[in-house]
């Protein structure tokens, strides 16, 4: 299904009018986007490095996961909302940008992985019987996915 019409709509929306005409608002939203990325990155790193038994070894895995989960959700919401605003300024250009689609694929994969696999696995009753290698693989997969999202996002600006 071609979603070009969505980008054409975004390109002529009120959001686009604001993002294209006000550099100050755009820069402020960019700051929110970067801040949300840092929050997401910090929480994911803490939780994944704990799963890898590298960081905060004296704090139980489930305590780390419970504490970081809500902040990850807050960061994702802020990142997606600010991302839509930023995308509205260059909607058509983004539609034809390979790195944008790579970032979107990574983002969808990251969301499915976090809410569909990682969280249920750690909150599940069988958590204590899980092979530690499964947890390490989950952490490596999570770090790889989110790194690809951040790196391809950065590369959008260069292409």
């Amino acid at each position: 299904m071609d979603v070009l019409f969505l980008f054409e709509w975004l390109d002529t929306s009120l959001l686009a009018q604001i993002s294209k005409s006000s550099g100050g608002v755009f820069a402020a939203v960019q700051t929110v986007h970067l801040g949300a990325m840092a929050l997401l990155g910090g929480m994911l790193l803490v939780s994944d490095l704990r799963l890898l038994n590298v960081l905060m070894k004296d704090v139980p895995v489930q305590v780390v996961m419970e504490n970081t989960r809500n902040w990850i959700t807050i960061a994702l919401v802020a990142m997606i909302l600010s991302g839509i605003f930023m995308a509205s300024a260059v909607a058509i250009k983004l539609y034809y940008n390979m790195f944008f689609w790579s970032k979107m694929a990574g983002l969808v994969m990251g969301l499915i992985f976090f809410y569909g696999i990682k969280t249920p696995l750690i909150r599940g009753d069988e958590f204590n019987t899980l092979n530690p290698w499964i947890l390490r693989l989950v952490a490596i997969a999570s770090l790889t996915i989110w790194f690809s999202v951040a790196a391809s996002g950065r590369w959008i600006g260069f292409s």
Partner: protein
Amino acid sequence: MLNELLLRLAEWLDSQAWSTDLHESYYLYNWIEATHVLTLMVFLGMLFVIDLRMLGWIFRDVPASIISKRLEIPMFIGFSIMVITGFLLYYAIPVRTTQSIWFRIKVVLLIAAGINALLFRNAMQSPVNHWDADPVAPKRFRIGAILSLGLWTGVVASGRTIAYDWFDCHQDMARFLYWAAGCVNELAELD
């Protein structure tokens, strides 16, 4: 005086072949910039966790000193790479960056954030720390955490705005802004 010195230093850096090569190297420059942003995420992400713990918004059941000590090393690694890549980005475009009011604001905020972090760290490591296991840190630590969050948000915001030319020297600006941006030649023309 200081503006002249900074400009001379920037012009000297700019005259070096490596500076030009770095600026003109598409992949190297972009990889350095990408690394700068990614390590900013590592550093700032860890800092967020520590500051939010002080405010009692995360890890309320884990002693603050454990959070602070365990995250110190990754935070330091992120900070070190961020500073090195930041210097390389400056080295690639020294004159325009030196004359960017946003870069100057960023440096001032960085220094303020550094002093705040140093005071914070010293107070954290004080032997008379009775509140370590409390869900919320005492008021002065909460103020320090809010200051830290505010200052770093300012660093990110001013870093982002360096790319904009709103107050570049070629713009028509008030004398104070020329001085604040270090527009030495434009100031001399006004005199």
